C-alpha cells in the first residue's frame, strides 16, 4: 500500500491542488484534509500548501494556526509526523511555534515571482534525504512576505545544528536572514520552505523536476521507517 500524504486546505489556500498532484507524481496517495476537521484520517505525512489562508488577515498564518486541523498537526508533529510547510505553510509553522522565527514583508516590498536557484544545505531531514548535500536546484519562488527573521542566537543555533535546509543562491529574493529559504525543527520531521517544490515536478508546467525530491524523500523515509 502506498503512503498517504495529507494536504490541508484552509480558506484561501491556493496551491493545495498542485501539492496533491506533486504527491501523486512522487508515487504517494494524496489525501485532502480540511482546516475545520481535527482528524488527520491516519495520514503518514502532511503538507501545508501555499496561498493566503484567511486572507493573510492580521499576519500571514496567524489565524490558520488556530484551525482544528492544526491542533492535531502540532500534536502529531511532536511525535514525529513528517510535516512540510510551503510558503504560507511555512508561515503557519512559524506562527504555530513548530519552527522558530517569523516571516516578514519582503525587504524590497515587491511580490517576487521567479524561478529561483537554491542550495540544499541539509539532507538530514525527512523531506530532503533524497538530495545531495550542497546540491543546487531550481524551483519557483512567489511571495510577498518571505523575509525570514529570527534573533542572532536562534540563527546561530540553526546554523550550528544543521537546520538550515536550503538557501537562496544567485540573489536573495526577499532579504531573508542569511539567505535562508527553508529550515527544519530539531528532529528533522518538520520543514518550512518559502519556495514552491510542488511547482517544479513536471517539465511542462515548471522549470524542471527539481522539486520532486522533497516528496520522494519523505516517501522513501516512510517506506524505510
Amino acid at each position: 500500500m502506498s503512503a498517504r500524504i495529507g494536504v490541508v486546505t484552509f480558506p484561501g489556500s491556493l496551491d493545495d491542488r498542485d501539492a496533491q498532484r506533486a504527491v501523486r507524481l512522487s508515487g504517494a496517495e494524496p489525501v485532502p484534509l480540511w482546516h475545520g476537521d481535527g482528524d488527520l484520517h491516519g495520514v503518514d505525512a502532511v503538507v501545508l500548501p501555499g496561498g493566503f489562508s484567511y486572507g493573510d488577515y492580521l499576519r500571514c498564518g496567524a489565524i490558520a494556526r488556530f484551525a482544528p486541523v492544526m491542533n492535531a498537526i502540532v500534536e502529531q508533529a511532536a511525535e514525529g509526523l513528517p510535516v512540510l510547510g510551503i510558503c504560507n505553510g511555512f508561515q503557519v509553522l512559524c506562527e504555530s511555534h513548530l519552527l522558530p522565527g517569523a516571516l516578514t514583508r519582503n525587504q524590497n516590498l515587491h511580490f517576487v515571482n521567479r524561478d529561483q536557484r537554491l542550495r540544499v544545505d541539509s539532507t538530514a531531514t525527512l523531506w530532503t534525504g533524497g538530495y545531495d548535500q550542497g546540491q543546487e536546484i531550481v524551483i519557483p519562488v512567489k511571495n510577498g512576505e518571505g523575509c525570514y527573521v529570527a534573533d542572532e542566537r536562534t540563527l546561530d543555533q540553526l546554523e550550528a545544528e544543521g537546520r538550515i535546509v536550503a538557501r537562496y543562491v544567485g540573489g536573495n529574493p526577499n532579504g531573508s536572514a542569511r539567505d535562508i529559504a527553508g529550515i527544519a525543527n530539531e528532529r528533522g520531521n518538520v520543514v518550512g520552505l518559502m519556495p514552491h517544490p510542488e511547482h517544479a515536478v513536471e517539465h511542462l508546467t515548471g522549470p524542471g523536476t527539481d522539486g520532486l525530491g522533497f516528496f520522494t524523500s519523505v516517501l522513501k523515509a516512510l517506506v524505510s521507517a
Partner: protein
Amino acid sequence: MAAVKIVVDVMLKPEILDPQGQAVSNALPNLGFATAGSLRIGKHVELELEADTDRAALDQATRIAETLLANPVIEDFTVRLA
C-alpha cells in the same frame, strides 16, 4: 459585568526592518514634505470586552494580544483603556 473599551497597539520591534514604513517615508519628499527621521507602521486594535473590572478586562486583552494579536517574535504591544 460591563463593556470595557480597550485599545491594543502592535508595533514591529525596533530591530525588525519595516519596509512598509520606509516606502511611505520615501514618498514624503515627492509630496513636498521633509523626509521623516523615522516612520514605522503598526496595528491599532479597538476591542470591547465584558468584564467585572477594568483590571480584569485589561488582563484578558493582554492574553488576547500575547496569543493572537501580536507575534512576540517580531512585535511588541501595549494595552490600555480606550
